[in-house]
């Protein structure tokens, strides 16, 4: 019993500690560039500060590091207390992590007017989660997958090995381009959305929800059988959406 109580107490204090780990930056427009941060969730919200929160308390376990500052070979310095370097370079906020491999679990809350750019090339880390972001999104990864929830675009998303999954909100903004080489692309759209969707795959297959009114367009009244691109107008056409997976499947489903 006593043991359980201590565990609970420990958990509670840890939670409190985690919540306290926060870094704020006043910025409601402009560009946020997140580079090589391994574990990150990005959330849109209506405020005017970019808020960085760490979900892992690992860094503070090291008593020896107390009073010292973390630096790394890229010339970066931990100026947030989260294991992150956040630097303003001519109005562009650059975010990089200090560690090369695992690194902290970070949640970044982003005001609606900020453009979010995320680039990642190393094989470390996990999927990047983007939620409720209404600004422009640019994501480029090599190994990590991408999850999109309730985003509007405009967005350009590409990955070499990752899967891209997502559901878009109803008020889409032009253009939306989602491209993967080896992973699948799985996108859910509200049925009311007006869009011109271009879906292509080379070695995979294309699946579309039967509820979408797809008027496949053909060139000169002829279908080219070797063609790997399907052009479809949903509800008469509108926002340009490009979905492409070279080696895997493309799924278009209703939300």
């Amino acid at each position, binding site marked *: 019993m006593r043991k359980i109580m201590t565990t609970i107490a420990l958990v509670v204090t840890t939670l409190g500690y985690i919540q306290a780990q926060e870094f704020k930056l006043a910025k409601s427009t402009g560009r946020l560039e997140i580079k090589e941060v391994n574990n990150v969730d990005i959330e849109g919200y209506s405020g005017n500060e970019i808020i960085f929160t760490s979900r892992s308390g690992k860094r503070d376990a090291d008593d020896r590091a107390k009073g010292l500052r973390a630096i790394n070979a890229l010339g970066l310095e931990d100026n947030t207390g989260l294991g992150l370097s956040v630097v303003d370079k001519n109005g562009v906020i650059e975010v990089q992590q200090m560690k090369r491999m695992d690194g902290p679990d970070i949640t970044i809350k982003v005001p609606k007017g900020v453009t979010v750019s995320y680039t990642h090339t190393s094989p470390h880390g996990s999927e990047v989660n983007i939620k409720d972001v209404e600004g422009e999104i640019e994501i480029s990864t090599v190994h990590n997958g991408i999850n999109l929830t309730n985003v509007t675009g405009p967005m*350009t998303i590409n990955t070499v090995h990752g899967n891209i999954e997502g559901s878009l909100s109803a008020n889409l903004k032009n253009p939306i381009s989602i491209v993967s080489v080896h992973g699948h692309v799985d996108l859910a759209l509200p049925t009311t959305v007006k869009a011109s969707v271009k879906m292509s795959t080379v070695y995979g297959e294309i699946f579309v929800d039967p509820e979408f009114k797809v008027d496949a367009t053909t060139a000169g009244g002829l279908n080219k059988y070797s063609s790997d691109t399907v052009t479809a107008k949903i509800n008469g056409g509108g926002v340009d959406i490009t979905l492409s997976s070279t080696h895997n499947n493309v799924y278009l489903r209703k939300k």
Partner: protein
Amino acid sequence: MEKEKLESLLIDFIDGKLSEEERKNVEQELVRNAEAFTLYEQLKEVIQAMNNAARLEPSAHLKVAFDKMLQEEMGNQKTGKTVFFRPAFYRVAAAVLLLVLGGGIGFWISKQQQQAQQMAELQREMNHTKQLLIGLLDNQNSASQRVAGATVAYKSVVKADDEIVNALVKAMNDDPNTNVRMAALEALRKFQHQPYVRKMLVASLSTQKDPMVQIALIRLMVEMKEKGVTEELQRITTEEGVLPAVKDEAHIGLMRLS
């Protein structure tokens, strides 16, 4: 007395137009002056001759001949200058014809002008599209806008001029964002039959570093049946640091092209 004055006085004297006093003066002058008298004689003769001449009538024969000639001449002129269509119906028809012709010419001219206007309009629209496209492709702050630029090229441009092609080629080769490169390639693919575009596409294969674009390019080379790239594909299959998927695509390309 001066000669001119005397002369006019003498003429009036002969015509009997002078007053009593003037007549007496002239008579005295004539008596006194022999020279004036000879002038009087001469003038009298001339005036008499003139009066006689006025009374000369053309002979009857001459008049008939002249009248006949006149009639003939008039007759000739009449037949030469007829412009009127005899029955009224023809006149109406001619008027209608003229009206229709005039209307037709007017219509033709207005149509010509309209066409010219439409051409100018089209030209302006194309220029506008081009400016829009190049402006969008040049937006360094937003990858989405650059994708939108390439999409404009893909959707609205029928035949790309060098300026558009160069902007697209630059995006395909140098843009930091893969999606922009892919969108630019997709647009260029539409213009692959233009020799310059084809040349730029082939050239891009040896410099392209983006694996996704590399794969798409190799596939396009196969689609275009571009046999000139086999050496380049060979190089890709053996080069280190190239993604296995790209090498696979190069192998497939080599097999399809040879």
